[in-house]
């Protein structure tokens, strides 16, 4: 029945082959693997479609029918528009469709437009005498003119501005797209403009005085007019004075990533994206335009996460780790990576995303007030499109492999390395000595002929990822819908049955009332993600295992704990892999927006949003996976949720005054965010088989946490564009936050922006006609920040955890919960942004240069305290002022554009410079050894590395006074120690370069991402895995160590780390312990990475037509395919982290069908 209804929308006639249902069945046969069956439009898409038709005095409908029959093109028109048309006589022979239609409609008051495979028939703008109009519309008074502005589909464009050229007059269309202008000169020219459309000039005719006329607007081809989603609305690049970058679905869907954040990497100026691991579903850190907040050390700075908004609703979990509660159990996966964990944004299917807008400056974000201080990322999901119901199916699958796999020493190399270390330390082993077998089991006890390649076993594998996505969309002019379902499976590439499985369902509905005054949008996203992994504490350390390690599993597959008296529990990675961890997350995002137009230009609306993410986590340590010496079975069950309710009433007003267009937005926000987490841990299970249940536990402990945040604000925005040249944009907000104490809850923020499109000036146009667009814009404004935990302004006590603190003397113990500071308030950020936009050759080449300067003062942060204060920190404002200033350049260009061949390029580059402007009392603060006024806060302090002493063979460092030592002092140089600033780890610049070349149906995209930076080098990774020479395997490339006096080596002498009474070995171990804090552990970590390669081929229609497929696309997408870097080994994107799950190279091949 549904299908029938779709075939016959009430007020329109859709012509098609007679047998709609038959065709449907045919498609169903072809797509039996799909759950969704759809109505079929037997159509094929060929530009060279020709028509042969002969008819004498036939009605137009018959002509349309025939053309439809031959070409498969649909016709779309209003019944009443055809009522007044005459019959036509035609003789066509292999005439191209376009020409055929022109001929057929030559004498008719009709226009046509071909869009895709649909022909839209509309009334001509000035029909000679359409009587039906006067019968349905009120008769206009003779003094005014009446017009209607529509798009090429006949949809009214409400809110379009209509100006009278050369006069200071103008108006705005109402919801039906109608407008009225009085006292218009006979030959007046109207200039009609609408966001995203080419503005149109319309010359008023005599007849327009009595008849209603139509202006059909066409979509602009210029990228400047593409609609950008901005705060509470849309804008275009042409008129925006704020800094907003948009990545669209076109770029997102070429990338085989499961997390949309990874698809943004290198594509947006000023946006720094850092993956934390190659683990499927792992966290991705995001920072916009540098660090705004100070931390106790550069590496422990709070990550300035932007605000994430999905379809107008703040995403409940934001970008916080989903498994924070069970984090400790997951140490192994990401233990040495800060801010790691599982990403909540993995629960949004990138295939359901239409666009991602990154709002960066005050003009773009001030309206979000306190929430926008770190920038805003607005994710907009796909919406239904009016027209024939269509089904798109994408299926792809392909392998993942480590990007830069580490090679470790084999057994002979390893044993030689160990023997060298022994010799260096002056040790001689006695195999009969129990101590020696305890300290050197690899040399004394283990079989020296065994070889086990742990690096390959754990991380050298190839895993698979599979993605299926089906989307059904369509609708009429007044109601559109989209439903899409996706399934994604990413398998871990280490041993075990581990994978991330995701199922998503996306729906979107739009309804517009007949008079277009009431508009309703509803969107809902649901996803279920099941990430099944191991809670192993240190799987990544498997690479370090001695390659002659005995079998860790016995022939029956049971873990071995003891080999000839040597306890293997420190090495038993295979047993630890069998300790399960699973994270299930259920994500629901609902948004509803109801808007009603009260009068021309004035509408009220309400946005209601609800975002909920539930997590269920489970981890267990079965007895069978533990050293029997310490075996104690535990299972932890955790339930958490993040919830946000968001209500936003708004009033919009838009009016054209002559050449000026004024738009006003006033709104309010009420937001309530809660999160909670409850964890129950059972221990002492009698049998591992009971581990899935809490009932089997001998003892149970539980703890819970919850957090609440309420936020209310009123905001307004005023925009004024005069003569399409001069732009003013003002916004303001007053916010209240529950995070602050009484009297400090409210703060006010605002911004002002100006823009001048000087290419619209006649003089400029004359002088530089090749520049098609030129705009200079700037804005200045403030943001606040309330980014601290609630309740910190009062002292609290909490009940102690029963597990760690059982009853004392029959009494439940309490503990103080926090230090309190009653007087903290909003942090304030002042941001200045200046941009120059240039377009050349009719906007084929677009250039944007943006400079910005952000200053964050009144820093609101957890101020570090020494332990003697009782707590590690207290929430406090302090008057340090931090500046981030930067330059961003982006260029897009269509280099070649011919009928069959097209080559386009995009390039962007950004650099941020951070500087501490002021910090009263720095010298006596905990930050004294970390920061220097006038220097970047990313300037890391440590020891200045000198090199390896060629006589003793151990590392040497410069002292604060310029001397040389192997045992530097941790005091600052200014206090007589050796700590001094060594290296600035802020990237110098980063960006991306993309090229897309298409020839006919073939399209190739190459996207390179690059970063020029200094960071931890491979040696840092090596030394954090253990001092070389100890019982830790080493990367095979690591050969350049000191062997004998006189050697000039990169690495110091090997040492076993067991120095007994040997002072040389001890000195080497000691010297090595400073290395990770020295400049020797930093190096160039710049890289250029072929982030994405996408090759696709669209099959010629002639093949597909026969089987009823509208279009079919075969593609190969690859991520992280090639890396060009001087980084010796390890991945430069994960600086200095060698022993972890490496980033993955993903190649997928797939098919996409449209039905």
């Amino acid at each position, binding site marked *: 029945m549904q299908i029938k209804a779709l075939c016959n929308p009430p007020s329109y006639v859709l012509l098609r082959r007679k047998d709609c249902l038959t065709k449907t069945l045919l498609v169903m046969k072809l797509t039996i693997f799909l759950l969704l069956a759809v109505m079929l439009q037997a159509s094929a898409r060929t530009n060279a479609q020709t028509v042969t038709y002969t008819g004498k005095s036939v009605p137009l409908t018959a002509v349309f029918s025939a053309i439809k029959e031959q070409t498969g093109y649909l016709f779309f028109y209003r019944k009443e528009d055809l009522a007044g048309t005459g019959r036509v006589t035609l003789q066509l022979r292999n005439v191209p469709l376009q020409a055929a239609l022109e001929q057929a409609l030559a004498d008719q008051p009709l226009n046509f437009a071909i869009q895709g495979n649909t022909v839209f028939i509309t009334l001509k703008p000035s029909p000679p005498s359409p009587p039906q109009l006067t019968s349905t519309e009120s008769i206009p008074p003779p003094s005014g003119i009446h017009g209607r502005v529509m798009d090429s589909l006949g949809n009214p464009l409400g809110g379009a501005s209509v100006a009278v050229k050369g006069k200071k007059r103008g108006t705005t269309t109402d919801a039906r797209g109608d407008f009225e202008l009085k006292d218009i000169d006979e030959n007046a020219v109207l200039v009609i403009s609408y966001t995203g459309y080419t503005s149109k000039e319309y010359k008023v005719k005599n007849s327009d005085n009595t008849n209603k006329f139509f202006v059909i607007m066409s979509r602009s081809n210029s990228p400047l007019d593409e609609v950008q989603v901005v705060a509470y609305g849309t804008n275009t690049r042409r008129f925006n004075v704020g800094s907003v970058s948009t990545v669209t679905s076109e770029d997102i869907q070429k990338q085989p990533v499961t997390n949309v954040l990874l698809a943004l990497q290198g594509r947006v100026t000023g946006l720094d994206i850092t993956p934390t691991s190659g683990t499927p579903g792992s966290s991705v850190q995001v920072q916009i335009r540098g660090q705004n907040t100070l931390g106790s050390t550069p590496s422990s700075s709070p990550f300035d996460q932007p605000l994430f908004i999905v379809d107008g609703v703040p995403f409940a979990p934001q970008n916080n780790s989903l498994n924070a509660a069970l984090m400790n159990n997951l140490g192994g996966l990401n233990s040495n990576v800060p801010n790691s964990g599982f990403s909540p944004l993995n629960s949004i299917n990138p295939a359901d995303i239409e666009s991602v807008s990154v709002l960066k400056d005050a003009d773009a974000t001030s309206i979000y007030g306190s929430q926008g201080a770190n920038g805003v990322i607005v994710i907009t999901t796909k919406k239904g499109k009016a027209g024939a119901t269509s089904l798109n199916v994408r299926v792809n699958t392909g392998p993942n492999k480590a990007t830069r796999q580490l090679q470790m020493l084999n057994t002979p190399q390893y044993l030689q390395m160990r023997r060298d270390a022994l010799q260096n330390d002056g040790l001689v082993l006695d195999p009969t000595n*129990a101590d020696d077998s*305890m*300290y050197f089991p690899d040399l004394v006890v283990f079989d020296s002929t065994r070889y086990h390649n742990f690096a390959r076993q754990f991380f050298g594998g190839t895993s698979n990822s599979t993605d299926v996505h089906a989307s059904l969309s369509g609708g009429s002019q007044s109601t559109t819908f989209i439903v899409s379902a996706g399934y994604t499976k990413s398998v871990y590439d280490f041993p075990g049955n581990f994978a991330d499985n995701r199922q998503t369902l996306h729906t979107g509905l739009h309804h517009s009332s007949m008079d277009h005054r009431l508009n309703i949008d509803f969107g809902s996203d649901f996803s279920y993600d099941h990430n099944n992994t191991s809670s192993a504490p240190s799987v990544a350390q498997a690479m370090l295992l001695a390659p002659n390690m005995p079998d860790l599993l016995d022939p029956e597959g049971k873990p071995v704990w003891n080999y*000839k*008296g040597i*306890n293997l529990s420190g090495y038993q990675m295979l047993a630890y892999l069998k300790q399960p961890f699973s994270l299930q997350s259920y994500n629901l995002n609902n948004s509803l927006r109801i808007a009603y137009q009260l009068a021309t230009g*004035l509408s009220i609306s309400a946005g209601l949003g609800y975002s909920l993410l539930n997590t269920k986590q489970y981890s267990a340590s079965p007895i069978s996976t533990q*050293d*029997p*010496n310490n*075996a104690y079975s535990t299972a932890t069950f955790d339930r958490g949720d993040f919830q946000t309710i968001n209500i936003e*009433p708004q009033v919009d007003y838009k009016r054209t005054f002559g050449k000026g267009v004024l738009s006003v937005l*006033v709104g*309010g926000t009420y937001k309530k965010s809660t999160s909670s987490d409850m964890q129950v841990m059972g*221990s*002492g299970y009698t049998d591992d088989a009971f581990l899935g249940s809490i009932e089997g536990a001998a*003892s149970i*402990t539980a703890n*819970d946490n*919850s*957090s*609440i*945040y309420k*936020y*209310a604000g*009123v905001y307004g925005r005023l925009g004024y564009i005069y003569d399409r040249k001069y732009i003013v944009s003002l916004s303001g907000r007053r916010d*209240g936050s*529950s995070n602050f104490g009484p009297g400090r*809850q409210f703060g006010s923020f605002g911004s002002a922006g100006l823009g001048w499109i000087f290419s619209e000036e006649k003089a400029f146009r004359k002088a530089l006609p090749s520049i098609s667009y030129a705009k200079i814009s700037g804005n200045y404004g403030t943001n606040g920040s309330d980014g601290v935990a609630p*309740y910190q302004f*009062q*002292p*609290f*006590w*909490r009940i102690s955890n029963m597990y*760690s*603190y059982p*009853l*004392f*003397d029959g009494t*439940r*113990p*309490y*503990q*103080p919960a926090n230090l309190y500071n009653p007087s903290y308030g909003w942090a304030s950020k002042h941001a200045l942004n200046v941009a120059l936009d240039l377009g050349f050759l009719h906007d084929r080449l677009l250039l944007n240069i943006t400079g910005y300067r952000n200053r964050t003062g009144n820093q609101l942060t957890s101020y*570090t*305290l*020494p*332990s*003697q*204060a*009782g*707590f590690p920190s207290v929430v406090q404002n302090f008057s340090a002022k931090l500046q981030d200033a930067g330059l961003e350049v982006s260029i897009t260009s269509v280099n070649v554009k011919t009928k069959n061949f097209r080559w386009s390029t995009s390039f962007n580059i950004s650099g941020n410079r951070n500087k501490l402007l002021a910090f009263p009392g720095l010298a*006596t603060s905990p930050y*004294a050894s970390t920061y220097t006024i006038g220097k970047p806060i990313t300037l890391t302090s440590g020891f200045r590395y000198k090199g390896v002493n060629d006589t003793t063979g151990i590392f040497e460092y410069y002292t604060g006074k310029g001397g040389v030592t192997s045992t530097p002092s*941790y005091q600052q140089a200014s*206090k007589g120690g050796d700590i001094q600033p060594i290296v600035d780890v802020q990237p110098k610049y980063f960006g991306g370069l993309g090229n897309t070349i298409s020839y006919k149906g073939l399209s190739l995209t190459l996207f390179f991402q690059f970063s020029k930076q200094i960071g931890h080098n491979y040696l840092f990774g090596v030394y954090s895995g253990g001092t070389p020479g100890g019982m830790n395997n080493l990367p095979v490339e690591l050969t350049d160590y000191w062997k004998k006096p006189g050697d000039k080596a990169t690495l110091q002498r090997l040492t076993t*780390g067991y120095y007994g009474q040997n*002072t040389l070995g*001890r000195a080497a171990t000691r010297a090595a312990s400073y290395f990770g804090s020295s400049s020797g552990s930093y190096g160039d970590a710049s890289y250029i990475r072929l982030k994405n390669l996408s090759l696709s081929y669209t099959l010629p229609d002639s093949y597909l037509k026969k089987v009823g497929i509208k279009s079919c696309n075969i593609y190969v997408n690859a991520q992280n395919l090639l890396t060009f870097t001087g980084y010796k080994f390890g991945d430069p994107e994960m600086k200095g982290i060698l022993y972890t799950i490496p980033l993955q190279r993903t190649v997928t091949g797939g098919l996409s069908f449209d039905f």
Partner: protein
Amino acid sequence: MLYINKKMLAILAFFSLLAVSCKKLIEIPPNPPNQIPASQVFADSADIMSAVAGVYANMKVSAYNPSFVSGSITFNTGLTGDELNSSSTSYRNFLQNAITVDDGTIQGMWKNAYSDIYQINACLEGIAGATVISVPLKQQLRGELKVIRALYYFNLVNLWGGVPLVTGIDYTINASLPRAAVDSAYALIKSDLADARSALSPNYPSLIKARPNLYTAEALSAKVYLYRQQWDSAAYMAGQVIQSGKYSLEQDLNSVFLHGSSEAIWQLPANSTSYQTAEGASFIPYTSSTVPPLISYTAPSLPLLNSLLGAFEPGDQRKSDWVAIVKVNATNYNIAYKYKNRTAVAPTTEDYMMLRLGEQYLILAEALAQQNQLSDALTNLDQVRARAGLTGSNAVSQSDVLSAIMHERQTELFCEAGNRWYDLKRTGAIDNVLGTEKPGLWKPSAALYPIPLQEIINNNLLIQNPEY
């Protein structure tokens, strides 16, 4: 226009309503569900008892993570001194007296001590102003808290030397306190103990000896005076405890550390859910036998050093009862076996021994010997020796008696709350003893642990100990 204006008015009214009720919109509950305001804690007698219970709970956290007072002092001083050995790399820096300033264990000990002291101070301040409990109870609690604070500072000053003396909860003051002189630290310890002695009664406030009474304060005072070489005061305090008649030496060595031991002066109940005491969990490996020799798969992680084993005189029953042999294949290891339960048993059979009578006899003996009251000294010394199955000491001269006492302290108090390490330091024997035990590794500056690096960074008034 009028039409629009009316609507505009309605809209304006709507927003002004929103603005007026803004304060209401951002109201949240007065406290998080699992927390209560500090003011409420000290306005309710049950809450006050819970706050104080937290102070005790802090001292023994869990056997997994030894807290400052229980467990970690025993292991770490045992390793830096001449008691414990280890093959584990995580203990290596302690074993070889090469602790670095960024060592996590050192950082953890320091941090735990001060966060516990914060709670003690918060309770002292809160209780002083409380009106919901009786004056005698306030006094009792103050006395208990002062004993505990004295114990913390006693350990801090012995591990690190002078430390910041935090006595309040105002972080603006506490965060920038410099290290006080050792003498000032002892002045605070003594005044806390004097206050405790005046506040506490001979009766224990709890059924078992979990919370200090007067004699606990006196026993700790005896120890403090001994360390300060105030022999008469030390002798007086120890004498008070011994003569109180409340305590007697357990004649069976295997009963000394049991729950309800008659020798215990202060015993914190161990009721962890998995392991019993931190010592038991760390010293005893998994074993299939219940009586020594303990048969195990793997070597114990903290076996005893040979020099300690050699210190026991022939026939010393402490060597058979408080030391156990662990057999791994053909290799034997010796472990401290004062606490014999590795995993928790219910009801609890072993508790954490904080202070016991055996030590008081030795304190008294030493204080008397220092005052040249040698025969009285020997009488007290022989009490301890007799219990270990040894004959009376045959030392004659003052120096012989003193070294006999020191030797007895080594074998009686080994692996117990840092006693041996502190003894080596306070008697000045450390360089001699450890220079022999750890040739090439020992250096005199290692007698003081380093101030954790992070603390010096966060409070730049802290000055590092020499040679770190």
